[in-house]
């Protein structure tokens, strides 16, 4: 058999040279393209909309990557770029590269534009699924900012629009009111008590029982024989105790019924208190606006606050997972499982990615599109615990052409310890706002054609606890007020016409899922005041109407209920009265008998004592005479 040949190709020079040549060709011809494609994909995922990279050049000898013309599409306005950077350069460190880590020793970002028009609209990615950690929570937060949307103002507008509610009483279901429910409860409770009392009265001694005791007492006659007196007295005492016990039962029941009578008044009084609750419930059902307008600032300013926070929210949700030092499954690949990268960080080791320093600079040219920017990013890493300093971002500048002045952002993202602490401050001294709607509903729309805005935001995240503060100001306002009803339009015009400045202050704290918001605004204050003035009379009139109706209904219900209870109490009292009278009579008769017997005993006793005394005296006299006869004393007669 012909041999296949040995394991080693001793003439391997040519194939090996071909293999190496293939690698070299790949590096020079395809590596840059592939890296550009990869970076575009990653950046597009992070941005939520198409990111284009004009060119990417890697230098293996110089160990750097140079990127030009980076365009990040604005997901909300795909025909514009959110950010456009002309040139970026990343100098890679060789020790890191040898270890398979991307350690960027120095980077620069030059010539920045924002809101630049794109040659063609960028592709926008579909929103991430709601269960995605972080962003989902942020979405929830946005909902919680405005929990009563379309209620406060909508109700007020409803009243203003209809010039009051026509016949508000016609559709009310009175049975659902708290006072009706309380009446039903009292009735149910009374039925139970009725059963209890009837059972108790059934077991009480009847008049016949007392009459029998009386008969037994009458049968006892005073004895002729004095020795029988004590026994007779004992019999009477025993009857008296029996009568007393029966009497106590009747008396306790009578007392209980009397107390029940007092409690009926208390129960009925509670119903009077419930009328206020009835009015509140009815006001809610009839959608009468609450003149406190507690949530007005949130409702009117909520969209504006959300708009200001949105860029931060989306970016933070995207960046946060990369700042956390935990193992993450690699993004799924269509064909094969990508596996999970397990980190084995050494205390003195290097993170997989570390941007040590990036300088940001952009110089405005006269009439040119570039912004005037200066800033730096330091120590951005995939494993913050291995980096000595927290991630710091500083940025300030102006975009004269867009009218943006005094842009300043500072962030300290410290994820080196178990509990991360991020502090982010963003401020813009002045920026133009054009054609923006603050709030829009069926009845009215409020916004402005143009304004000059200012914004300051402070954000602190420690663990899962957030503290957020936002102050926004808009000046030189040109209002846009639209309303279907003339009355509403006149009201809104009168409020906003003279206003040239709007200030919104929002504070929030707590965990992401349940942020507690506190929003104040002079806009809401003015509107609240105007609405109160316009609505207070109509609301008061409607509430009076409700109160009168409720009082009338309550008086009827109360009368019926109280009458029923009092009648029942009277019936029970009349049931108990004969027994009570009999008990009283029996007790009096036994007492009289006992008294009679006692006086008899007393008389007999006095008579006996008299006899004893006389007998004693006689015996003394007799003894004295005997002594005299025995002793003859001279001179004693």
């Amino acid at each position, binding site marked *: *058999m*012909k*041999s*296949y*040949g*040995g*394991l*080693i*190709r001793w003439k*391997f020079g040519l*194939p*090996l040279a*071909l*293999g*190496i040549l293939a*690698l070299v060709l790949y590096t020079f011809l395809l590596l840059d393209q592939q890296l550009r494609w990869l970076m575009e994909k990653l950046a597009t995922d992070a941005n939520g909309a198409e990111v284009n990279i004009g060119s990417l050049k890697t230098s293996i000898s110089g160990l750097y990557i140079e990127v030009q013309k980076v365009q990040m599409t604005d997901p909300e306005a795909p025909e514009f770029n959110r950010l456009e950077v002309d040139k970026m350069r990343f100098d890679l460190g060789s*020790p890191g590269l*040898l*270890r*398979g*880590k991307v350690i960027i020793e120095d980077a620069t970002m030059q010539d920045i534009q924002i809101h630049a028009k794109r040659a063609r609209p960028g592709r926008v990615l579909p929103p991430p699924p709601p269960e995605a950690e972080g962003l989902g929570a942020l979405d929830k937060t946005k909902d919680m900012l405005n929990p009563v949307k379309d209620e406060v103002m909508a109700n007020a507008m409803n009243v203003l629009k209809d010039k009051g509610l026509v016949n508000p009483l016609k559709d009310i279901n009175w049975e659902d009111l708290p006072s009706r429910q309380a009446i039903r409860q009292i009735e149910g409770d009374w039925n139970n008590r009725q059963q209890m009392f009837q059972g108790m009265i059934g077991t009480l001694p009847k008049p016949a029982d007392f009459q029998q005791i009386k008969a037994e007492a009458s049968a006892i006659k005073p004895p002729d024989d004095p020795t029988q007196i004590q026994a007779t007295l004992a019999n009477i005492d025993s009857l008296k105790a029996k009568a007393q016990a029966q009497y106590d039962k009747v008396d306790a029941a009578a007392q209980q019924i009397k107390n029940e009578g007092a409690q009926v008044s208390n129960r009925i009084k509670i119903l009077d208190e419930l009328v206020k609750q009835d009015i509140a419930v009815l006001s809610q059902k009839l959608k009468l606006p609450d003149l406190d307008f507690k949530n007005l600032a949130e409702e009117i300013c909520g969209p504006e606050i959300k708009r200001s926070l949105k860029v931060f929210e989306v970016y933070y949700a995207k960046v946060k997972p990369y700042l956390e030092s935990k193992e993450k499954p*690699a993004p799924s*690949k269509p*064909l*094969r*499982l*990508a*596996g*999970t*990268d*397990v*980190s*084995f*960080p*050494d205390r003195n*080791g*290097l993170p997989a990615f570390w941007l040590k320093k990036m300088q940001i600079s952009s110089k405005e040219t006269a009439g040119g599109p570039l912004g005037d920017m200066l800033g730096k990013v330091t120590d951005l890493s995939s494993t913050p615990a291995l980096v000595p300093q927290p991630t710091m971002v500083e940025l300030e500048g102006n975009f004269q052409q867009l009218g943006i002045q005094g842009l300043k952002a500072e962030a300290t993202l410290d994820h080196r310890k178990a509990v991360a602490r991020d502090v982010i401050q963003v401020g813009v001294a002045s920026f133009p706002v054009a054609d923006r709607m603050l709030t829009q509903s069926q009845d009215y729309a409020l916004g402005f054609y143009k304004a000059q805005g200012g914004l300051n935001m402070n954000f602190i995240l420690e663990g899962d606890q957030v503290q957020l503060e936002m102050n926004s100001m808009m000046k030189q306002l040109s209002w846009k007020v639209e309303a279907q009803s003339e009355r509403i339009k006149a009201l809104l015009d009168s409020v906003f016409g003279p206003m040239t400045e709007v200030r919104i202050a929002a504070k929030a704290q707590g965990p992401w899922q349940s942020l507690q918001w506190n929003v104040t605004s002079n806009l809401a204050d003015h509107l609240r005041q105007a609405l109160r003035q316009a609505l207070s009379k109509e609301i008061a009139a409607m509430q009076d109407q409700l109160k009168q109706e409720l009082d009338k209904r309550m008086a009827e219900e109360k009368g019926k209920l109280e009458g029923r209870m009092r009648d029942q109490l009277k019936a029970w009292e009349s049931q108990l009265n004969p027994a009570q009278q009999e008990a009283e009579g029996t007790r009096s008769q036994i007492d009289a008998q006992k008294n009679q017997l006692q006086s008899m005993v007393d008389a007999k006793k006095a008579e006996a004592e008299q006899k004893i005394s006389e007998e004693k005296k006689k015996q003394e006299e007799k003894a004295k005479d005997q002594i005299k006869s025995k002793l003859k004393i001279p001179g004693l007669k």
Partner: protein
Amino acid sequence: MAFSFPGRSLIIPNGVSLIQLVLTFIYGSWLGFSPGIGSLHLVLLLLSLCILRLPLILLLIVTAACWALGMVGVDAGIHALGLKVLREPSLSGLWTQMYNAPVIPWTRFNNSMVMGATVLALGLIPLWVVLSLTLRRSVRA
């Protein structure tokens, strides 16, 4: 039993040695079970084919078969195996040294799929030996 079918000598050349067959199975399974070729050891493995004389068509068939096995669900097992090895406490010192050493991290050994594929390809050596012996005997017969 004779092992014969049209083109058999192209797939399993006459006179191929046992070590060549075993290495073909190891290379094929390693390449096939790995999720991609973007790691240093696989590039070196491919380059080594310029030096080693292996039956390339058989190598392609084994690679494709293992790739297909991965696609039909063996991936999950490879991933679990890789994770188990990487998270083995007694090996953590070795992995930490390798992770922070120069060049080695380019092998992406810390990826569960890469590690799982490596362990599986090498762990199946006894099977590859038995299979190679059987094939060789059949070819000779």
